[in-house]
């Protein structure tokens, strides 16, 4: 069993993302680093979705984004390997 247990948060179905980034192939901490850089390019209140392909990132990225004051709206496994994280910029 993996030591990483992402907290599943079902994203509201009526959300539309302002930006989406495919971060598959990236590992921690670069999944967070790139998510943070993506948010820095966006306006407050806008919604970012990132796709990661490992449970460690799906566990840590929402936590780190929350620590920086953003609102994590969703964290869901979307297929056998990938996770979609949805966050609203603070």
């Amino acid at each position, binding site marked *: 069993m993996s030591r990483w247990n992402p907290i599943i948060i079902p994203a509201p179905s009526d959300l539309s993302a302002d930006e989406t980034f495919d971060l598959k192939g990236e590992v921690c901490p670069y999944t967070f*680093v790139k998510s943070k850089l*993506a948010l820095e390019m966006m306006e407050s209140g806008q919604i970012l979705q990132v796709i990661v392909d490992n449970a460690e990132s799906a566990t840590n990225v929402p936590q780190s984004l929350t620590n920086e004051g953003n609102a994590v709206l969703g964290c869901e496994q979307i297929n056998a390997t990938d996770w979609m994280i949805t966050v609203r910029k603070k």
Partner: protein
Amino acid sequence: MFGFTNDQIYRYSRHIILPDVGGVGQKKLLRAKVLLVGAGGLGSPAAMYLAAAGVGALGIVEFDTVDLSNLQRQLLHRTQDVGRPKIDSAQDTINALNPDVKVVKHPVVLDSTNVMDIIADYDVIVNGTDNFPTRYLVNDACVFAGKPLVDGSIFMFEGQATVYDAAHGGPCYRCLFPTPPPPGEVPSCQEAGVLGVLPGIIGSIQAIETIKLILGKGDSLKGRLLLFDALAMEFREMRIQKNPDCPVCGDHPTLTTLIDYEQFCGAPFPSNPLKQALKEKETVEVASSR
């Protein structure tokens, strides 16, 4: 991607993660221009950490060549560099560490005729000089140009660091020491010796203060003189205030042009004059605060 190359995202990731830096702060560092006065004991760690941090342009003022006796503390230079101009070995070390950094070489002795032109291009000046004439010259030039000066000095087992920023309400070097000591009164490292690690501590503190000024984060050493005693392994702090009677940044400055003081070489070695000067200063400080 996001205004960085993929390599830069990896290289600076531990900065970008920091809430007080982020991509925004890292871009400030990449755009910053810092001048190092001297590529010796203090300049070495300062240059290497600023280069590693991705400071966009590092100017170096240095006219000396590498001597075997420098290698005990001046980490920019290696054994194979002995005899080479320090500015060249500094450039090699910095380029090898981080190709993002543009090294601007100023292979000159600073004097009243060139200092204003040289500092004009830079955001922050880092003082790593080992002599009083240059220390006063750089201080006065930074006051005239309104530039922050991140100062450091070392002597035997003791070091000091502060930020002089007269343009933003802080004191300058002359607020503390209005005029140079008479030639011959203060020994140089060459005569008194210096612990090799000591500039590593003080030069690294100068690098931190420089980065904080560029980022606009934290509380700088402006108005505070940090004193480090390696033998006691003790840091102390002295409040330093702008002197209204300062000859260069006071209310009625009497010094309005740059001065080329004579070199202070061949000095006999008196008993710890720096400590004595600081004790006297501290007494004045304590007395004035009551």
